[in-house]
């Protein structure tokens, strides 16, 4: 399956780019990620616990950041083996574009593929699942960069920057 989406992030393109390469950001943003090691240059090893329809599994796999053109393009590629549950592979082609000062448009095209028991039991719901995973990843990413998108909080006080933005700008 394939899906596309985009969102505007309230941060400079350089900060968004740096966040995409940050191990701690990735670990925080990959839904169900319990462990992540490695680096952007050498690739990451990740452990992800996820439930796809009726199948709950621990996926061990690799995440690689390829085709990097700083600060505008990269590909996130993940391959996970879930033992008896089968496997799940996925990738996102990410494009960054400066919209105006302090705002960056993040566009992604996601492709996901499952095999084994996941395909046998979960193919019907895999599109929805992949969309949910992608949405969750980029929402968390947006939050990590620009802070929680809570309207009540927005009204009460000036929006606080996200933890990654605070860290890199302080």
């Amino acid at each position, binding site marked *: 399956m394939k899906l596309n989406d985009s969102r505007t992030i309230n941060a400079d393109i350089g900060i968004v780019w740096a966040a995409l390469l940050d191990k701690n950001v990735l670990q925080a943003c990959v839904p169900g990620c319990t462990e992540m090691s490695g680096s952007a240059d050498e690739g990451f090893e990740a452990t992800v616990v996820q439930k796809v329809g009726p199948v709950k599994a621990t996926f061990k796999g690799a995440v690689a950041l390829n085709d990097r053109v700083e600060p505008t393009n990269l590909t996130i590629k993940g391959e996970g083996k879930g*033992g008896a549950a*089968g496997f799940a592979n996925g990738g996102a082609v990410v494009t960054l574009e400066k919209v105006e000062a302090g705002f960056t448009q993040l566009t992604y095209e996601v492709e996901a593929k*499952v*095999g*084994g028991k996941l*395909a*046998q*039991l979960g*193919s*019907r719901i895999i599109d929805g699942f992949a969309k949910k995973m992608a949405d969750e990843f980029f929402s968390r990413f947006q939050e990590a960069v620009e802070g929680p998108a809570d309207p009540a909080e927005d009204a009460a006080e000036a929006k606080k920057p996200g933890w990654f933005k605070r860290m890199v700008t302080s």
Partner: protein
Amino acid sequence: MPKDNGIGASSKRREDVRFLTGAGRYTDDINIHGQAYAHFVRSDVAHGTINGIDASAAEAMPGVLKVFTATDFEGVGGIPCGWQVTDRHGEPMQEPKHPVLAEGKVRHVGDPIAVVVAESLGQARDAAEALEIDISELPAVMDMKDALTEGAAKVHDDLTSNLCYDWGFVEENREAVDDAINGAHHVTTLELRNNRLVANPMEPRVAVGDYSAADDEHTLYTTSQNPHVIRLLMGAFVLGIPEHKLRVVAPDVGGGFGAKIYHYAEEAFCTFAAKALRRPVKWTSSRSEAFMSDAHGRDHVTKIELAMDEQGKFLAIRTDTHANMGAYLSTFAPSIPTWLHGTLMAGNYTTPLIYVNVKAVFTNTVPVDAYRGAGRPEATFQLERVVDKAAREMGIDPIELRRRNFITEFPYATPVAVEYDTGDYNATMDKLLEISDHSGFEVRAAESKANGKLRGFGIAHYIEACGIAPSNLVGQLGARAGLYESATVRVNATGSISVFTGSHSHGQGHETTFAQVVAEMIGIDEGQVDIVHGDTSKTPMGMGTYGSRSLAVGGSAMVRATEKIINKARKIAAHLMEAAEADIELKDGQFTVAGTDKSVAWGDVTLAAYVPHNYPLEDIEPGLEETAFYDPANFTYPSGAYGCEVEVDPETGKVKVLGFAAADDFGNVVNPMIVEGQVQGGLAQGIGQALLENCAYDQDGQLISASYMDYAMPRADDLPMFTVDHSCVTPCTHNPLGVKGCGEAGAIGSPPALVNAVIDALQRGGHDVKHIDMPLSPDRVWTAMNG
């Protein structure tokens, strides 16, 4: 008055008492002291190279006895194929090796790579998670036509291509058929797919292997339709165990539908591992495993052309089929799209010229083999669909068009090599129109229309070849086995009888029907007769149950053996009554001397046979036990007319089956209730294929309909009340019971009737839809209606 005993009585199925009260003894009920458990590790990619398997971590896990891989099976044969098809050019089919466990490559999702044997099933499963299997995925070969293009990826690297065979039948007629089609008044063409199905017997497959070192004897308990065939294939071709050291037991089996005919890797594995480990080894399939390891059915892509003259008389038929073999050749796979399909292409019609071309193709999918009907449903579906389309194109009523072309004189030799011995197709058609209230259809259609629904009526007339099969004939056609059947009738001293049959019952009710036949012949109560089957150590060499053959072939063997018993018993009775043998009559279990009041009872004669104090020992041996092997002279040809009435909701495309009527000619009927049950079950499966079931793969070869969430089995509320009739009887002319077989008919005749009904409904509703591929899901019907 209906009979309450013997042939023609609707005796209640005696086996149902144990099945319905949980007292059946299925293979999974067999647990042997010290048994270990096997868990199969299967490929989750469709096609790939195995780079390496590291079992060290798995073997160190608690309870693990051993992890088996292909290296343990070096020196062991592959799973054999039981039928060799010769292609159009006189060359044998391409026959790849089918290893017990994958060697070097995996070729379908579910292909077994390794087996973990442990003290418990949980331990085996846990250890499987620790198995390191390194596979590089290869492009999956999925589409049959793409698979045959130059440069396509190959399922088997050592074969020249993915083509198993290119079969032409009858090859000599090829040009004549082309000429007839080119010169015809009208040619109707239809392209269709016969959807891939999974058999889904209620009981999944199970195998328990046991080995006795004391006498070097192997025993395999397995969910099989033919234990002797498994013994022969596994003993002689895979494991090299002589038959006298190998016992195969198929106890109560909960449904087969073809999927339990074949010899499977799991059977060979459990037998092999039991000796290797000196422990009984058990494997029980999960439902998920069944979807990806039981042989699938159907999966033909076909183009059929029907040529006619001005009056709609059929002149020629040409069909072109791609038949999916899957990744390996299952036991009888090559015979299904050829001899069980091509020979039926005449149907009930006098078409003088027929040419059938079948290209069998390897793909990265589960092997495909016989499934209820096996080849005959594929033949019937395309023929009865194209006849219906032709009727519409010619402006002739579909019933009338069929009648104009019916074979009416018998015996009838078809242009596709078979000879129908008997039948009356107009009689079954008449009966169908009567029992389906066809004359009232227009009124019902108007009612539906008033309710905003589209009602349609569809008809199909089928023929099938059952009672498989004359051994010398099938031998010429490539079968690597004979297809006779056997029976031993053992009369006990007190007159009760044990019949040992080579047929195998896995739901058909043989224990009841067969007892009725023997009881009728002797004139004793059915309760005096027991049927024993499913154990190679008990029954004579038999070929098992499939192809609606059990009563026609197995029953005939039983009749022959019982005739021998009666002949001998008459000699004993003649001696006891001091009369001439020629004057002895047997009726209602009494031997009498014709024209006198002298008689002896059955029990007196049987006792004399085993206590031969007053006995003609100079003429005959003591004892009363006879065996017969029966090899049929021809196939049997059941036929029937099926009618289906549907209502389509134009808003949603949902099809509701409102009525289904079946008028069958099965020849003589031994147990009408069992016959009706068989027809009803077949109809449910045929309607399941037409409306609901579909085995789907994605383009990467992932099996995406591998649970009951995605594979829609027919349920009671998908089906109407069936109207089933078998009062049209033209007895088979060449077997002693005059029976034809009823097991597959329902699944053969119903899919085209249903699809014809839906097309009729749509056409009546003003939608010019000519064909929809099965299953007719609301999505497909709605899409067809809305272009």
